[in-house]
């Protein structure tokens, strides 16, 4: 389907609470955003907007950074000079299979329109639902739950990231980077730009507060997005990159 960008609710820019930037932690759950799960794409989109707008309280009472800030500093200030032209029509895929009835049109829309920070948050939130963590009342995926994420869904998500970043972003890209880093997480973080340098000292980009990540396809290093939290250990990302879906190239096939 062809969408004119004007219908992308700007609320998204304000509402995605990218609190815990690394973990999928926001209490604005994808379930809420995408509910009802099996709803048609278009309505899902609008539901998402309103649900997200209502969501405000952060994980564990975490003082939330204004996501408007983070997204404005990333999506606007960083990308001001190269915001995708609003008048251009973008094609948004609609055949987005899910084993569990998840609606990926919002993700596709966000990615298609360059709202990378929001897409990033959506992705993390989706994983919380897909892994079954949400159902257990938790806001983060524990590494043992990764195996419950259906390959179909992970494939769909990956194709979207790949497509709209021209192959620059996505878990499969990260997997490659991780292998190049010989399985060393620190090296990996440096490679994909999750580390930054303060003078001589290399550190992780901040997980809270104004985002330091680069929500810009052109400026970000390869594999920079989507972010996965190392806030609760590195085993989560390791498991994700170890998911059976990457064992072969099946996921690459467009449905």
């Amino acid at each position: 389907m062809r969408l004119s960008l004007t219908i992308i609710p700007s609320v998204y820019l304000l509402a995605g609470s990218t609190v815990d930037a690394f973990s999928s932690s926001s209490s604005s759950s994808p379930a809420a955003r995408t509910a009802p799960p099996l709803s048609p794409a278009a309505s899902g989109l609008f539901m998402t907007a309103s649900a997200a707008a209502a969501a405000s309280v952060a994980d564990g009472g975490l003082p939330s950074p204004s996501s408007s800030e983070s997204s404005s500093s990333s999506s606007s200030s960083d990308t001001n000079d190269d915001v995708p032209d609003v008048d251009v029509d973008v094609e948004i895929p609609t055949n987005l299979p899910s084993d569990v009835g998840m609606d990926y049109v919002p993700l596709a829309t966000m990615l298609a329109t360059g709202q990378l920070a929001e897409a990033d948050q959506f992705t993390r939130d989706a994983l919380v639902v897909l892994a079954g963590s949400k159902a257990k009342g938790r806001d983060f995926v524990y590494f043992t739950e990764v195996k419950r994420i259906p390959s179909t869904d992970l494939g769909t998500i990956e194709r979207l990231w790949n497509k709209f970043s021209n192959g620059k972003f996505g878990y499969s890209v990260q997997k490659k980077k991780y292998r190049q880093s010989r399985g060393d997480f620190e090296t990996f973080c440096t490679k994909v730009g999750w580390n930054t340098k303060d003078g001589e000292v290399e550190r992780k980009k901040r997980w809270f507060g104004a985002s330091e990540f680069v929500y810009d396809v052109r400026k970000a290093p390869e594999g920079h997005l989507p972010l996965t939290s190392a806030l609760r250990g590195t085993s989560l990302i390791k498991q994700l990159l170890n998911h059976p879906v990457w064992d072969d190239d099946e996921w690459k096939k467009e449905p």
Partner: protein
Amino acid sequence: MASFKLAAAALLVVGGCSTSAFVGRRTNSMIRQSAVRTNALYAGTGSSAVSRRSSTSLNMVVAPPEVGRGGGMFTASNAENRRVVPEDVRGRPVMKIVYVVLESQYQSSLTAAAKRINAGSENMAVECVGYLLEELRNEDAYGQFKKDVAEANVFIGSLIFVQELAEKVTEVVAPLRDQLDAVLVFPSMPEVMRLNKVGSFTMKNLGQSKSVVADFMKKKKQEDGSSFEEGMLKLLRTLPKVLKFLPSDKAADARTFMMSFQYWLGGSPQNLESLLLMVGQDYVGTVKESMKGKTKVVMEDPVLLPDKAIWHPVAPSIVFETPQSYFNWYNNEHCPDAGIDVKTAPTIGIILQKSHINTKDDTHYVSLISELESRGARVVPIYSGGLDFSGPLEEYYYDANGKPIVDTLINLTGFALVGGPASQDHKKAASVLKRLNVPYMCAVPLVFQSFEEWQSSELGLHPIQVALQVSLPEIDGAIEPIIYAGREGATGRSVPLADRVNLLADRALKWANLRNKENKEKKIAVTIFSFPPDKGNVGTAAYLDVFDSIKAVLKQLKKEGYDIGDAPDSKEAIMESVLNDPEARINSPELNVAYRMSTDEYYELTPYAKDLEENWGPAPGNLNSDGQNLVVYGKQFGNVFIGVQPSFGYEGDPMRLLFAKSASPHHGFAAYYTYLEKIFKADAVLHFGTHGSLEFMPGKQVGMSGTCYPDRLINSLPSAYLYAANNPSEATIAKRRSYSATVSYLTPPAENAGLYKGLKELKELISSYQGLRENEGRGPAIVNSIVSTAWTCNLDKDIKDLPNLETFDAKNVDLERRDDICGKVYAQIMQIESRLLPCGLHTVGVPPTAEEAIATLVNIAQLDRPEDNIEGIPRVIAASVGRDINEVYRGNNQGVLVDVELNEKITQAARAAVRALVNQSTDSNGRVKEVKNFFDEAAGLFGGFFGAKKPWTQAIIDAGFPAVSEERLAPVFAYIEFCLKQVVANNELPGIMELLNGQFLMPAPGGDPIRNPDVLPTGRNMHALDPSSIPTTAAVEVAEDVVRKLLEKLADENNGAYPESIAFTLWGTDNIKTYGESLAQVLALVGVRPVSDSLGRVNKVELIPLEKLGRPRVDVVVSCSGVFRDLFINQMNLMDRGIKMAAEADEPLDQNFVRKHAIEQAAEFNISVREAACRVFSNSAGSYSANVGLAIENGGWEDEQQLQEQFLTRKGFAFNADKPGMMEQQADLFKAALKKVDVTFQNLDSSEISITDVSHYYDSDPTKVVQGLRDDKKKPMSLMADTTTANAQVRTLSETVRLDARTKLLNPKFYEGMLSTGYEGVREIQKRLRNTLGWSATAGEVDNFVFEDANTVFIDDPEMQKRLLDTNPNAFRDMVTTFLEANGRGYWETSEENIERLQELYAEVEDRIEGV
């Protein structure tokens, strides 16, 4: 004290991050500085932060956290970051809340609670701003705080236990208390608690009258610390339940307070929301007003977690109160799902802090748990509401049969196991841990710094945290202080440091592996050292017979089922196998090559290899390299590898020695550890003896990051480190920087040095003189012989008025003068005779014989121990003849013949008495099998037998003191009997095996067994002391006394004029052993006195008024060893503040030399007097020593100028209390201060480490440096205080060098003892000679006769020559070289003949070594 107890109670109740004690130790000027710095930081960003706040439509602003640059010691977080302003008031009344908390975890909970109310409540909105207690030190923040409180409805405070901050809070809140609607103060100092106001409920009388609580606490005080805490917990838990049933209105208010407290303890956003809503609707005027007619909201009950429980992040229930319920879920559901094999998985116990669970600030915990589980391990994470974790540990870590279920225990709280920071019970902790008997790691979360601040800091972990969360847990027996989490600057949330958490998980599992792997499968790497790097030095370790000890360890390993292959059962054979490469030419300089690592393999396996290229170029380089490969030296036997640790690699390189900061390890060094971990795949490494270089590699001081070299090198390898028991300071560096668990070993048994040759003759002559002194014929003749023999023995150097040999005849002087001469000679030789001399080398697992223990015990028995009501034997004996022992000592030191005689007689009596006690317990082999409890027996017999004296009393009586009091002797003999048991206990091999078998090794203090017999038995994990406890009051008293004597002596010798400045050297071990005496001496000279707070923590200094001081303030230049800097940075701060205080005191310049010099320097450098008063120096962070020792040991130095430059460059880093986070290079100020120095001074604290035993003492001696800098080029006087015996002395440096030479290098008892151990023995002799040369080079205080006599002993005598050459040709060559060098550099004048012989010998040895 009362407030402290309350504090302790409160800490445990909240079970929270009880950091109050830390803050207390933060010192005033440090704080002031941090305030200044913080101000500066915010000057630029403040306005924008404010404007952003007003412009945003959201209710929270997060500015990027500011990182305190350069310092890294102080937090720069800001309350504005967490101000919550309601987004949309919707006509609701706004309740304004201001809070001050210590625990940053509460910050996010309160923010969330406020937001929930703003979003959800119909009745009120909340504006909320909070301050972390620390932030109130910042003047701007304090100003804002005042404004905020003035506008507030409700004030909340918690854990305000820092006196000066408590005062600040009270100052603001007290005047506004009436206008505030409610004040809620949770456990804090009494004056803050008194601010409480909830309706009619107040605590105005708190702490002023008797109360139930106070009585209860008093009663509990008598019991041990932990049960006191648990009792308090119960009390505070029951109170609210009781209150519920009280009817009156007053009780309702009290109930509200108690409910608030419960909500507060609950800590979650939900609980805090209830707290705020409850207080709002009941007490805040505007809210009450608007709610008129509405029904009050009924609050949910506080959701509280149990006091102790098991917690798991993905468990369906929040916590488990019984192990059964936990394992039911964990083993049956979680583990199978996580792919963990319940039957075989190692189990890691984890101790957590409850407040992080309450507030859900737990990602750092989850992180470690997930890393462990993803590695296939089971975890059992527990918490306690109090600060005594021993209860839950006992409850959850044993199965039904009482068998421990965990393999390794990690304490993530960073606190001591029992009592946290408040009141530790180390004994209880150690015994609980020993019962569990698994490795116990205590990892540290950053509290006082954000992780960015830690990361950019060269010091690493904040010194206050080091004191509390590294030093104190070490006393429990904790190992591996790994930083694993940090406070995130902006939000206060704890975040894990991913690489550290991974390391922690790896290391914990490697320790667990040592428990679970079969011994025969385990691979052990024994690492030996080589200092200086030379074949003759392989296997060097202080006082240890390394290869003999390795033999003993191998034997024990075999006994316990380890595979030691075909390891030979002979010391020599083991040594040969490592030293000689069978493939190389015979006697080649090459060691045995165990492995050649190609550069490709090296780069592949060593992730940081590239970083070494900056210093060393690409691999392989030319150290430990054959040109193509990196070479690992050593020899493998079965699963045991004996490897030689490479050296620093820059010992002989004048360029590198001069660098102010140390270079990284070289490729060969890295390759060695890569080999151990990744190719040999060691399960554990055993570092063999004191000490190697791993722990001295560059990096942070404490709290390593992943870029620090000790951390990178050791990586995941568990390390056990055999360490001499008398060196706790360097052992502590090994523990902290290289994650090593130490196993202490005994220094060799000490003997009295005894007399030999001319000295022995002198003793005999004096004995004859004693009988014949009044015989006018024989008496003078004997005196003449004494004088001439004294000249032969070079005693003229020590006895200033020794009569001239040519002109003197004793016939011409009176009896008094003759007595005087004999007395002085006698005092000199007795000083030599009674000096303690460690004999030979120690072999691990061989305790001293009873006979060997005697000298040590005599010395233990010499000291008075007033704290234990023990009088030393000499004091009791002296009393029996109506003398005070101190008087006797004084007379002895002055050479008063009768006192010298009496002192000698007392010494002999004491030795006889101790021997009598020891003889009771010796078997036919002369070994102490079992110490018979004679004291008890004796006690039972008291009064039973008339006249039947105990053997030791009888011995004293027989020695000529019939009136000695048996009763007064009883305590000291009971004590030495106890000490005897400890000395002969054999714990060393078992200690090593406990570590290799993955068990808990009991902790023990390190130090001098004579001063502190608790050091014994050895074979335990050594620790230093609580650094905040020094200097102790006793140490200050002793120090003031020493300083007074010293200044009197100096003034006497200088026409009553005091020295203007004294250069000091401070050592870590010295200050540990003496509880800070030497640093107290510095303070005493300047005329300041340390002041301790009610906890006995020293954190302030005050000026002693001049009139009270009675003399001028003497200036100082303090040169701290790198180890002292690492251990006692708070004390450096104390000294610097004292010195600055003195410099700024408005006093006459002839009465205040600190000020006098500082004013001159201020003018010279155009800086302030305060800046000029910079006197506390050390190395740059992460660097150690002046490298003068390395240069001299290696011989590769050009001239003295080079040594002096090294000293000035490397030691010229100033500590500045105004910029406390860094060591700043201040070479100009260092020089300016040194050029004023009149006297250089060092302390000698123990007999086993004397000035020619190690290179440290001359390494940092500035005597010649000062001479070069002084305008008049006059050499300063060099003094050494010797506090090794009860009769403490101040001697000149040259006297001390002579004394040391006479007792060691030139003493047959010493060198024969050394030679009897063979290979190592020759090296030990050579080391003394080399170190003597060091004193020539740095101070020029070595008499010619020392080298001359040494040459006579070791070179002149052909038989001796041959023995040395045969036993250790390499070391002998070094010896010859040293003699030639001493002559070549102008330190030794001797005959042509001697030099020619040495040159010939050199050629001969060289040929022999080369195998020609």
